[in-house]
């Protein structure tokens, strides 16, 4: 107890500083210039608390009550179809519910551009490539590895969704534990089955470049595309070519080299059917005349510096599909 009392000033200091930080985050001040996300963190903390409180509240409700739906964290669950939900009989908890992600928007809501340029997906016609503006990515999702993680941070496509993770590859991309919009443990499969998109942009292939052959890789890719289509029947799939690497990396690495990358890209391009699967050769925007990523674009000769993500971004904007 004495120890605790002696430590009291320390706790006090921590609480005071937390309070000051909170106040600082609430008012307009020069610190905001340096810590622009701080207010959002506080906001997020509050929201999380409410979310958790809601969950606890819901768990107290007996799911077998005479009520047709339970409103859990923004998702309406039909009690008549409860067979699908794992119920722990001892406690009466809805276990599956806690794993259900909270969609930010209504799952079926898809914004449609107002300029009339949009092709309805009931019948896929051949789309043509052309320049688009950023709103084109409102209903797009990017699936990919660390390079797409970079895109999510430095493309400034604020409205697109990014289902990506460092180390993601074609073999584990559907099941891999990823975090998405505050949901720490979800997967691409889970998200694709809840949310709805019109465009699915994929770039995978650098992590598994040492595994299998170009054919086995493309077969796996094709399987993933089929699965994505089963969740997103209205979406077009855009296969982005595997981005090339720098010359020094390419020359020194047994598997991560440009000949291998281009071999696989060649095969990937054959997956496109130009009705609902398209292929975009991103390397047109990145590679130099020898097909290598220029050395000054990257620290590790694999990932673009943040300042060069505009090349990729502009390419996507120039090659929208409609």
């Amino acid at each position, binding site marked *: 107890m004495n120890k605790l009392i002696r430590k009291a000033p320390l706790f006090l200091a921590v609480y005071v500083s937390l309070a000051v930080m909170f106040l600082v985050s609430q008012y307009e001040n020069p610190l905001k210039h340096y*810590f622009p*996300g701080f207010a*959002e963190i506080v906001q997020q903390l509050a929201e999380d608390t409410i979310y958790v409180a809601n969950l606890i509240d819901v768990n107290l409700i007996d799911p077998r009550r005479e009520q047709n739906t339970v409103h859990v964290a923004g998702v309406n669950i039909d009690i008549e179809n409860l067979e699908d939900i794992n119920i722990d009989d001892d406690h009466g908890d809805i276990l599956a519910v806690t794993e259900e992600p909270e969609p930010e928007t209504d799952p079926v809501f898809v914004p449609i551009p107002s300029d009339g340029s949009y092709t309805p997906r009931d019948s896929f016609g051949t789309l043509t490539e052309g320049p688009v503006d950023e709103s084109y990515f409102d209903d797009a999702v990017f699936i990919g590895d*660390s390079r797409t993680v970079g895109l999510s*941070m*430095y493309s400034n496509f604020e409205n697109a969704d990014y289902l990506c993770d460092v180390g993601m590859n074609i073999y584990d991309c559907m099941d891999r534990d990823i975090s998405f919009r505050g949901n720490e443990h979800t997967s691409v499969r889970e998200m694709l089955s809840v949310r709805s998109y019109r465009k699915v942009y994929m770039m995978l292939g650098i992590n598994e470049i040492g595994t299998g052959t170009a054919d086995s890789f493309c077969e796996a890719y094709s399987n993933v595309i089929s699965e994505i289509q089963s969740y997103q029947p209205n979406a077009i799939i855009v296969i982005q070519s595997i981005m090339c690497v720098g010359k020094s990396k390419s020359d020194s690495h047994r598997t991560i080299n440009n000949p291998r990358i281009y071999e696989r890209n060649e095969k990937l391009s054959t997956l496109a059917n130009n009705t609902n699967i398209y292929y975009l050769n991103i390397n047109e925007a990145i590679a130099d005349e020898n097909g290598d990523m220029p050395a000054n674009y990257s620290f*590790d000769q*694999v990932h673009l*510096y*943040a300042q060069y993500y505009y090349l990729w971004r502009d390419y996507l904007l120039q090659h929208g599909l409609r």
Partner: protein
Amino acid sequence: MFFSDINFLLLFLLIFIPVYAYVPSWAKRFVLLLGGIIFYAVNDIIVLPFILLDILIVFFLNRGLEFAFDKPKLRSFLLRLGIVLQIALMIVPLFFTEHYFIGIGFFAVQFIGYILDVYKGVCPATHNILDLANYALFFPKVLQGPIVSFPEMAKSLSKPAGVNPSKLEKGIRIFILGLSYKVLLADRLNSLWNGVQTVGFQSLSTPLTWISMYSYSIQLFLDFQGYSLMAIGVAYMLGFTLPVNFQSPYMSRSVGEFYRRWHMTLGQWFKNYVYIPMGGSRNGTKKMLASLSVVWLLTGLWHGISVHFLMWAGLLLICIILEKTLFKKLVRSENIILKFLGHAYVLAIIPMSWMLFAIPDIDRIYIFFMRLFDLQNYFQPINVNSTDYITYLKDYWPYLLGGTVCCFPIVENILVKTRVSMTRFISFALFWLCVYIIMKNGNNPFMYVNF
């Protein structure tokens, strides 16, 4: 094969220690040498012949120094020859190959020290080449120190004490602590540092720049201290005592004090073989400044022949000179405010000096510091994601927090110095956690690349 390598942990160590413990004592020295040679060969078989040759040369050179005790000219020639040879061993490969000679700086420094000791008559030249070879190739310290002088080890090398249970246990505790520093914290923080370099300094937000600077400082300490602890631990298991290399350096109040507590064995080496012979601090200010400058010039060059290492050493030299002249009284004052300011000064200047140490390219150093202080008049940042530091903090806060705690001596005191079953259990758990993490990364088919 580093200490945090699964082959070392579960193969080399598990075979070597029982063998070393159960062979008769006359054979221990041979087993030890064999272990050293195998360990070095696994790491770098190309360099091994050069090292063995160097051991022979130093052995005969030192014998020569003793035989020629009445011929001062010959002696000074032999001395110079020896030192030049060691320096050549360090430098020459840099001009011919891209191949980095592991641990060569440590070999050279220790042999130069030994030659000087024999020359000055501090210790006799050894008559037993086996002892010398064991001293040079003693596998716990062969890759990264700690630097030990030959007389310190000579006795225990010529009559190895062998493995005893209580020393074995303490050694294991020290080793596990070092392993945890390295595997659980330093390696994780390393990916933060890699991450910010991949983004490019020109696109870092200012908070992330600060975070990455402190993260690197913590990482560097834990990595090096982790290695030193592992070395000390392995040596202890075998019945040898190696000197301590770090004493919570980030708790210092001045840069001078910091370097008395950081990589202490190297600091002592420079003190004994450069600083004091050149005049040291007892022969007037001029001599002190001259010897300090030489010490820091050599320290910079020892880390690598490159401008940024010289800048790093230069910055530290300036700080230390100021501390020894203008601010002498302030540094020694017991005033609580001055003490606090001293800590703040060390915690500001040392991480910045590490940036000079870590970034090999002057332009990138410039950009880093412009981002650190957000001097937009001199450098306009490009495509900054202003909330990037939140992403990084979310991913790395446990390691940053854990790393910060480990910069204080508390963890070491609890895990190494207390002998209750609780800490025994913690050490045991930490070991298997480390093995798990190493295996997980090792079994990952995408180990070398995780993009």
